[in-house]
């Protein structure tokens, strides 16, 4: 299973990861994607997550080919 993982804004700078592709043997959750992609760093307060550009929670299931994104609270407008 191959998952594309993206980080944005202050989170991208803190983790020093822009984008990473991870491989997993079995289906998992967004939380497990975070742990694998960040080497189990602590989850920031107010972390936002999306799968394929739709907001989801940390317990949401991830399937092969998904794009998972992590980012801080948004500040547009």
């Amino acid at each position, binding site marked *: 299973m191959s998952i594309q993982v*993206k980080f*944005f*804004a*202050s989170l991208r700078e803190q983790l020093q990861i822009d984008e990473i592709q991870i491989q997993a043997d079995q289906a998992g959750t967004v939380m497990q994607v975070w742990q694998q992609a960040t080497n189990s760093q602590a989850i920031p307060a*107010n972390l*936002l997550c*999306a799968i394929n*550009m*739709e*907001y989801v929670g940390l317990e949401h299931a991830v399937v092969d080919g998904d794009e998972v*994104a992590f*980012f*801080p*609270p*948004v*500040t*547009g*407008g």
Partner: protein
Amino acid sequence: MVVQIRNEPFDAYAEVQIMQDSLEQQGKFGATSVFVGTMRDFNEDESVQSMFLEHYPGMTEKYLTQISQQAKQNWPIIDSLIIHRVGQIEPGDSIVLVAVWAAHRAAAYDANRYLMEELKSRAPFWKKEQLNDGQRWVEKNTPS
């Protein structure tokens, strides 16, 4: 229904006029509500020199299209326009434009504000301010 992300400065009121002139339903809209967000030269008591606006390409357009469709379901509006800047922004530049055309004013006002509140609370944009002595990420938007 138009949603655009722009890398360059745009003339907000000229954009409203261009879209309005292109509407098929000329003579049908009695009410237009327009909101323009402009970059200020200070924030939280500090002078701001400029700003970088990062976004999540693809998700921003998808999200803004979704809320535009939702607005059209929630209110009897004729059309809507959202333009949002990204990249390097200077004080006085327009950051966001939301315009809504409707037959009557309540729908125009309500749908416009709905779009701005949804955009502010959920659209994946992030502001980084350049101050006199460094830079900082804006941590959160005000709720209203």
